[in-house]
């Protein structure tokens, strides 16, 4: 019914989806599986008309379909439930559910009674008790997600794309959603489904396609697979030669975090990082990894718990405190929390350590320019000149510039949150080598990564988080991907 034919997508010169062909059949639940960044969401967004493909085409009922907007796809009969929820907070639940398909009376006025009835009907289908007259703003995340599902059901679509629809749902709500999916299947609707929860895949899916690094690994009947086989398909790859050799850490404890808590994101998080050691925080999206490292860097301080650096207890209220204490961080959100887009590469690099390149309140321009040139060549940042705006660089070069900024001040502890997300394999290898070099120089590294091979090959120890708590601390030398995933997956 719906066919992705050789679909390809590039972002800023980097291919995130290589030509991929998958058929989606009516009355079938088709699960798309893969690690974060494997290309699942990209593929779905092309099918839903949100992205234009850079190659290949979408075939809809055996005809070439050119969706230029989500509206086109909706009219054709393809609806999507997005991973990032997109509610309009100041409208009611009913208005959100019927948004864009409001029942109208003569003169184009909205028929309020019909609107409420329609919303109630859809909520009933999901066995939800949300009052359709409530304001969207007052709902919990889980309830918001239920409303998003109801909205998609209300489109009377022939294909529904569901991008992690259960991420925020309770077991009871998941069960209701699954019953609704079963009814949709019986009506011949095609469901495309992504999730990180293994048990869901095998309860729901008829067929499973696995993506890895933007490439289709394979499509199989769910009955032919089991969780172990599936995980191997998702993560199995040879990256041995990309990863440099690890050196043993010292016994000198650099960072000691104990009892870090900020409900509801995480609680009672304790771990240590030694000099020369790479410690990875592993876990699924939403497990609290970014929140924990953000607390250590002062972006969002913990409400309880203690952080000691070199034995000294620290009170870190903001990034300035962290930088002054010798903690540096490269954030996961490069655009939002990293780049100053209009400033030059050089000015971006020197931003945190500008005090070292001047006298009093003044900037010493020659010294600053020398420092940024040195950093640019040391980190092989490719740019025309230090004054080229950083927004014009590729993702990999931007990331290397941000690493250069973080390291210019000479921090002892370096926090790297998803340092290789969205950059090509060459730049990844450079960053891997840099991490080991820093460890060898006696720095402590706290690494957050969703890529398991990266975690296993770079880290000395792995702290696994599950729903905001430490579920295991593993020695990387004896751990494997299955073990980490088993501790990371909510059961």
């Amino acid at each position, binding site marked *: 019914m719906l066919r992705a034919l050789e679909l390809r997508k590039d972002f800023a010169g980097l291919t995130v989806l290589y030509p991929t062909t998958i058929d989606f059949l009516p009355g079938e639940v088709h699960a798309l599986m893969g690690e974060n960044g494997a290309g699942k969401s990209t593929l779905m967004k092309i099918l839903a008309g949100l992205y234009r493909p850079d190659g290949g085409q979408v075939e809809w009922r055996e005809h070439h379909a050119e969706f230029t907007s989500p509206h086109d796809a909706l009219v054709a009969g393809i609806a999507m439930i997005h991973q990032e929820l997109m509610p309009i907070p100041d409208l009611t639940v009913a208005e959100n559910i019927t948004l864009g398909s409001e029942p109208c009376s003569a003169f184009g006025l909205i028929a309020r009674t019909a609107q409420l009835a329609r919303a109630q009907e859809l909520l009933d289908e999901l066995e939800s008790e949300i009052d359709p007259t409530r304001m969207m703003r007052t709902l919990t995340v889980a309830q918001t997600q239920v409303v998003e599902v109801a909205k998609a059901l209300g489109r009377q679509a022939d294909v529904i794309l569901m991008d992690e629809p259960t991420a925020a749902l309770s077991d009871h709500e998941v069960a209701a959603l699954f019953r609704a999916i079963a009814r949709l299947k019986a009506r011949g609707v095609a469901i495309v489904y992504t999730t990180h929860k293994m048990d869901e895949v095998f309860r729901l899916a008829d067929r499973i396609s696995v993506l890895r690094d933007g490439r289709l690994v394979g499509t199989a009947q769910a009955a032919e697979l089991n969780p172990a086989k599936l995980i191997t398909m998702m993560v199995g790859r040879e990256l041995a030669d990309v990863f440099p050799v690890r050196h043993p850490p010292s016994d000198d404890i650099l960072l000691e975090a104990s009892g870090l808590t900020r409900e509801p994101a995480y609680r009672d998080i304790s771990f240590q990082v030694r000099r020369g050691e790479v410690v990875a925080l592993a876990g699924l999206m939403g497990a609290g990894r970014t929140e924990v490292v953000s607390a250590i860097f002062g972006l969002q301080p913990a409400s309880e718990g203690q952080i000691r650096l070199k034995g000294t207890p620290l009170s870190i209220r903001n990034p300035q405190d962290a930088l002054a204490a010798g903690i540096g961080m490269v954030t996961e959100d490069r655009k939002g929390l990293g780049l100053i887009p*209009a400033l030059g590469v050089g000015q971006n690099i020197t931003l945190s350590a500008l005090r070292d390149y001047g006298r009093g309140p003044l*900037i010493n321009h020659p010294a600053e320019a020398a420092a940024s040139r040195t950093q640019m060549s040391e980190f092989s940042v490719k740019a*025309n000149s230090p004054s080229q705006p950083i927004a014009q660089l590729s993702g990999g070069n931007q990331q290397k510039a941000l690493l250069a900024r973080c390291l210019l001040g000479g921090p002892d502890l370096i926090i790297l949150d998803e340092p290789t997300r969205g950059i090509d394999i060459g730049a990844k290898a450079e960053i891997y080598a840099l991490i080991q070099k820093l460890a060898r120089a006696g720095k402590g590294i706290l690494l957050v990564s969703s890529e398991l091979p990266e975690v296993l090959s770079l880290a000395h120890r792995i702290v696994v988080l599950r729903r905001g708590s430490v579920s295991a601390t593993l020695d990387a030398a004896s751990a494997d991907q299955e073990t980490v995933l088993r501790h990371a997956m909510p059961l």
Partner: protein
Amino acid sequence: MLTLDRNLLHRFGLLLVILFVGLALSLLTDTFLSVANFTNVARQISINGILAVGVTFVLLTAGVDLSLGSVVALSGVACATFAHPGDHSVFVPIAVGLLTGAACGLVNGVLVTRGGVAPFIVTLGMMTIARGLALIVSGGRPVADMSNELTALAGDFLGVPIPVLCFAGVAFAAWFFLRNFRLGRHIYAVGGNENAARAAGVPVEKVKLFAYGLCGLLTGLAGVVLAARITTGQPNAGQAYELDAIAAVVIGGTSLAGGVGTITGTLLGVLLIGVINNGLDLMGVSSYYQAVIKGVIIVGAVWLDRRQARS
């Protein structure tokens, strides 16, 4: 390099527009092209110029200050109140005027940073508060009877009007500051991406407080200069001055979204608005039409610039 080129291109383009307008006015009137008129233009633009330089700092942090005109009036009234002949040394009324402006700016800054209220709302409130205070302090009447020492501020020094010297000094200091001070770089960083600046260890709140405070201080200066020129503290002075100042800054290429802009651009914007005002006066265009024409030119200039930026 591209942005650099664009900035140069922008300023070069703006300079061409100013020269074109100047050429047209030289042909259309026989009074435009004269030393006396140029001195006159310089004198007329100096108050808007001082305000525009100050508000450039605020706009660079992605903020806005709508209270300029009212704070000009309040500072002028405060200055005049202390400027009666024989009361105080001339430095007292000047200091009172500057500090009044700076205080208003700091209140704006504190409400924006600590209070988390949008700059538009904060400064809109200050706009009516400062106007009200000016009327209260003066009892609604112009504060006259100013000492000659103070009104001499509107006179000449070595043949150059002192307001023009003030404007030139302020502009040079601002240019030097934004270019060579760490705090200047921080202003661009905060306006370019506030969250990223904070994560890079930039003291975002202090930077914004400084920008609003400095803008207030320069507004106070403009108030003192205006009071000296009209030899009274006028509680109704400075109506809509903020609009000319912000227009000049935006014409000069500063982004209302923050993080992009230069003092040289602001100077050219001030000059363009000044030349247009002067030309329309010389041609005897009625002030009703002047307002319409100026509005069209402001929107047109920015529209052309943005269209060029997109292509």
